[in-house]
C-alpha cells in the first residue's frame, strides 16, 4: 500500500464516494427508477422514430408563384406564356400560334424552378444576392425598371438588409425584384427547417423541460425525505459527517444516475438526427455543437431542480405539493422563453437560463438561423403579383422554437452567464437545503 498524504480532501472524497455509491445502488434496487427511465427513453424514442419517418418522406412540392397553372386553358402554363410574351389570361394568345408553333412545356418545369441562391453574411446594411434561375426576370422582355423593382440599380437581385433596432437586436428585411428566387424547392428548405426545428424543440421541450423537471421530481424529492421518514437516516447521521455534506453527496448520487442517462439519450438524439437529418453530407457534424449544448443544459437543469426538490423534500413532508406547482410554473416559463426571450420574468425561473444555453449554442452553430427563418417566411414572395401566404413549411415551427438568447448578450457571453447563474442557483439551493436539513430535528 502506497503512502500518499492523507489530506482532508482525501477523507472527504472517501465519504463522498461512499454515499454516492450507496445512493446509486439504492436507486438500482428501486423498481420506480427503471420505470421512469424506461418511460422517458420510450417517449423520446417514439419522437425520434416519427422524425426519421418524416425525414425519409418526400416534402410535397408546391408551386409557390402559381406559374404552372394554365389559367386561360390554352394548354400553356402561365410561366411559359410570360416567358414567351403571350397573354396568360387570354386563351387566344399562346405560343402555339407562333411560327413555328412552340410545344407546351410540362407543368413540372414550372414547379420549384427558381430556388434560393443566396450568399450573404450577417452584417448591418444592404447586401445584394440571388440569381434568377428560370430566367423569368433576366431573360424576359421586361423593361429595365421592371427588372429592378427594389430600386438598387442591380436588375433581378434580392436585397437582404440587416438593421439594428433600438432594442439592440438585429433584424433582417428582404426585398426582391419580382421573379427572382420566387419558387423555392420545398423539399430542400422544409427538410432543413424541420430538422433544425426538431433539434431545437426536442432539446428544449423534450430534454430540458420534460427530462429536466420530471426526472428530479421522481428521483430527487425523496433523496433525504424518504430516509427521514423510514428512520434509516439515523445510520448516516451517526457518522462524523456534516448534514449539508450528506445532502450534497446524496444529490451527487442522484446525478450519477441522471447525468449518464441524459448523456446517452443526447448522444442517441445526435446520432439519429445526424444520420437522418437533411443535407448532402453523410453525417451532420455541425449539429453536434447544439446537441452538446442540449446535453449540457439538461444536466444543469437536472442539477438545479435536483437540489431544489431535494431541499423541498427536506423542508416539508409534502414537499412534492410545493414542487408540482413549481413544475407547472417552469412549463409556462419554457413557453414564454420561446415567445419573449427577453421577458424579465424568465430571470426568476430555472428553465429560462437553461434554454438560454441552447439558444446561444444554436446561434453559434447556425449563424444564419435568423436569415433562414426570414427566408422561409418570405418563401419567394409569391412571384410577381400573387398575394397569398407564401411562407414555406417548417419556417413557422422553426421561428417558434428558436429564439435569441436574450439580455442582448452575444452567444458566447450568454452561454457563460447562464451557466454561472445555474451553478449559482444550484449552490443556493444546496445551501438552503443543507441549512434546512441541519436545523431539522429528526425523530
Amino acid at each position: 500500500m502506497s503512502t500518499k498524504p492523507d489530506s482532508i480532501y482525501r477523507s472527504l472524497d472517501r465519504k463522498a464516494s461512499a454515499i454516492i455509491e450507496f445512493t446509486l445502488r439504492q436507486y438500482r434496487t428501486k423498481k420506480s427508477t427503471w420505470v421512469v427511465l424506461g418511460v422517458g427513453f420510450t417517449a423520446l424514442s417514439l419522437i425520434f422514430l416519427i422524425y426519421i419517418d418524416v425525414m425519409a418522406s418526400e416534402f410535397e412540392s408546391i408551386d409557390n408563384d402559381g406559374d404552372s397553372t394554365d389559367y386561360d386553358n390554352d394548354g400553356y402554363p402561365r410561366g411559359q406564356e410570360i416567358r414567351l410574351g403571350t397573354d396568360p389570361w387570354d386563351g387566344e394568345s399562346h405560343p402555339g400560334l407562333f411560327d413555328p408553333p412552340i410545344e407546351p412545356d410540362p407543368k413540372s418545369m414550372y414547379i420549384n424552378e427558381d430556388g434560393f441562391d443566396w450568399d450573404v453574411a450577417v452584417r448591418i446594411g444592404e447586401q445584394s444576392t440571388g440569381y434568377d434561375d428560370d430566367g423569368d426576370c433576366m431573360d424576359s422582355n421586361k423593361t429595365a425598371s421592371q427588372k429592378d423593382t427594389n430600386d438598387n440599380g442591380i436588375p433581378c437581385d434580392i436585397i437582404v438588409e440587416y438593421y439594428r433596432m433600438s432594442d439592440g437586436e438585429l433584424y433582417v428585411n428582404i426585398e426582391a425584384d419580382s421573379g427572382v428566387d420566387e419558387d423555392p424547392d420545398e423539399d430542400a428548405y422544409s427538410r432543413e427547417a424541420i430538422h433544425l426545428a426538431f433539434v431545437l424543440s426536442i432539446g428544449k421541450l423534450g430534454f430540458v423541460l420534460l427530462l429536466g423537471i420530471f426526472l428530479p421530481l421522481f428521483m430527487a424529492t425523496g433523496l433525504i425525505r424518504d430516509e427521514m421518514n423510514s428512520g434509516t437516516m439515523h445510520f448516516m447521521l451517526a457518522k462524523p459527517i456534516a448534514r449539508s455534506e450528506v445532502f450534497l453527496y446524496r444529490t451527487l448520487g442522484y446525478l450519477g444516475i441522471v447525468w449518464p442517462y441524459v448523456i446517452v439519450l443526447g448522444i442517441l438524439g445526435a446520432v439519429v438526427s445526424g444520420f437522418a437529418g437533411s443535407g448532402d453530407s453523410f453525417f451532420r457534424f455541425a449539429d453536434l455543437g447544439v446537441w452538446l449544448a442540449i446535453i449540457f443544459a439538461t444536466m444543469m437543469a437536472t442539477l438545479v431542480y435536483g437540489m431544489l426538490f431535494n431541499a423541498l423534500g427536506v423542508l416539508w413532508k409534502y414537499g412534492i405539493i410545493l414542487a408540482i406547482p413549481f413544475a407547472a410554473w417552469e412549463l409556462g416559463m419554457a413557453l414564454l422563453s420561446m415567445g419573449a426571450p427577453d421577458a424579465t420574468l424568465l430571470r426568476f425561473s430555472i428553465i429560462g437560463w437553461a434554454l438560454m444555453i441552447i439558444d446561444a449554442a444554436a446561434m453559434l452553430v447556425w449563424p444564419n438561423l435568423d436569415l433562414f427563418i426570414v427566408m422561409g417566411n418570405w418563401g419567394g414572395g409569391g412571384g410577381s403579383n400573387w398575394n397569398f401566404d407564401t411562407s414555406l413549411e417548417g419556417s413557422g415551427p422553426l421561428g417558434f422554437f428558436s429564439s435569441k438568447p436574450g439580455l442582448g448578450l452575444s452567444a458566447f457571453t450568454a452561454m457563460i452567464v447562464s451557466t454561472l447563474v445555474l451553478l449559482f442557483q444550484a449552490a443556493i439551493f444546496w445551501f438552503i437545503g443543507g441549512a434546512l436539513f441541519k436545523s431539522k430535528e429528526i425523530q
Partner: protein
Amino acid sequence: MIPDFDQQGKAQTKEWVPEVSAPAILLENVSKSYGRIFALSNITLALNGGVTGVLGMNGAGKSTLFNLLMGKLKVSQGSVKLFGTDPWKNPAPYARVGFVPEHEKMYDWMTGHEFVSTFARLNGLTRDEAKSEANRVLEFVSLSDVAHKKIGQYSKGMRQRVKIAHALVNDPELIILDEPLQGCDPLARTTIMNVIRELGRMGRTVLVSSHILQEIERITEQIIILHQGRLLALGNLHSIRERLDKIPHRISIQTEDPKALAKDVIDIDEVFGISFPDGENLSIQTHNLGAIHSRLPQIIVENNHKVKTIDNPDDDLASILGYLTSGGGI
C-alpha cells in the same frame, strides 16, 4: 483535486482532537420540550467508561436522551457535550462514537457486509480498510457466516447484531445502543448481551437502554433510571436493590384451595401478611422475597397443594419506579 478512485493511503480517522480530559458524555441541566410537554427535564449527567444501563418505561425519555446525544434533536435548555463538543453543532465527535438506533427499518437490499463496510467508509476509511474492518466486527458479533446474505433475509436478532456491528466498525470509545434487545429471541438476546459485556470489558463507555429491568441486570450493575423525563436514580443496581428489599413485596399464588395453603405458609417467619383477593388466589406479603422463594416449593410439594401460578407482581420496573417516585417510604 482528482477523485481518489484507487483510494490508497491510510485513513485519518482520528484527525479530530478532543478536549483533553473531557468525559465521553457530559449533560448539564439538559431539558428538551415539545411545546409545553417536557420530554426531558433538567438532567445533569457525566459518564466515562463502563457499561451503563438506561432504564425507563416507554416514553420516559430514553430515546430523547439518545437523540440529543446523537445530535438529532436540539436541546431546549442546558448543554450536551460528547468528548467536550456539542454534537448538534459539530458532527466531529461521532468519529469516536458508535450508535445503534432503535428503528427497525434497514436497507434490506444490502448484504450485512455491504451495509457495515459502506457506513464504515463514512468514518473516512478507505474501501479496503472498510472491508477488512467489516469482517472484523461481523466476526465480533458472530455474523460472519451470514455476512454476505441480504439483510432482508435476516432474523430480528441478526438485524440487531448487524446494527451493532455497524456501530463498532470505527472502533469507537463510546457506544450507544437504543433498545438493542427489543424483539429478540432468547438466543439472540444472550449473544447481544455477551457482546455488550465484552465491550465493557474492553474499557469502552457503553450506554444501553431498555425498559426491562432483568435485561439490564444481566448486562451491567450501573444504571440510570429515567421516569417522565426526569433522572430518578443513578448508581449501582445493588444499592438500589438493597433499598428495594426493605419495601414489602407481594407474592400471589393461584391455587385450588388458597385457605389450606395459607395455613402452611403463615408459619414462615418472613411473612407478615396474607390476603385472599378471590376464591382462587392467595397473596403473601413479605420483606424478604428470597427467603420465601426458598421455602415455598418445599411447602407446596410436601402438602400436595395444587398450584397453578406463582407470580411476583412487584418485581418489575413499574413497581420499582412506583416505589422510587412515591418517595421511598414503606
